[in-house]
């Protein structure tokens, strides 16, 4: 199942303004596309749950040889209706 993904405005602004190369932006987009097709097994794994109705998605990629870790907190209360909401985003370092 492919979920419809939406973003909190602040999270979207943060992701948009990340200092990444063109290749890094493509990888960031690939990470976000990965969230759209996450399995229920992943989403519901207690390791990734953060409170009720949310899961944490961490994704590692390199940008210009530098390792980066993207962390998203995703509200999945609408998962049964095919909807996931990215409420918080962070990318380190």
């Amino acid at each position, binding site marked *: 199942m492919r979920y419809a993904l*939406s973003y909190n405005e*602040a999270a979207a602004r943060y*992701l948009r303004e990340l200092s990444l190369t063109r290749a890094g932006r493509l990888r960031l*987009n690939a990470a976000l596309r990965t969230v759209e097709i996450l399995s229920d097994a992943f989403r519901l794994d207690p390791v990734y749950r953060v409170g009720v109705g949310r899961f944490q998605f961490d*994704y590692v990629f390199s940008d210009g040889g530098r*390792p980066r870790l993207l*962390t998203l907190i995703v509200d999945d209360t609408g998962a049964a209706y095919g909807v996931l909401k990215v409420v918080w985003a962070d990318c380190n370092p």
Partner: protein
Amino acid sequence: METMVLPAMAGGLVGTAVRALEAGPVSDWPANAVEQGRGLFRCAADALLALRDALEAELDQGTVARPFVARWGPVLDGLERDAPAVAAAVPAAPRALADDLRAASDAAESLRSRLREVLATVRAALAKPIDMEAVRAAEERMKAGHFVTHEQLEKELLGK
């Protein structure tokens, strides 16, 4: 499959090399052991370089972080254990063996140093606390209709 086979292969070859080095000073190895050692160190170097390539390919593609740490953490642990013994044997190695031994040592050091950098970054980021108050506030704003669709964000991300 590659991510399972390559670490097993490289770890086995480096482990065998270390056991051989620990069995006796490399300067005292008989000629046939030197010949076998050359093949062994060459294979170990090749396997370590292939592993480094696999690591970079995985990072270039991007991957979910926790399984990544679970796969590569034990590889780094093995290198931390075995790489110093390989490096320490290089200065005393007979000329016939030195190049292959140095190649194995350099490949181990290159992978070890990259893995240290990557895993330290990922582990530090994973350990960083999340501001759950900010998360709850963001959820409230989204409920009030303040949100961006993926299509909008993708356009902006890739349009730059």
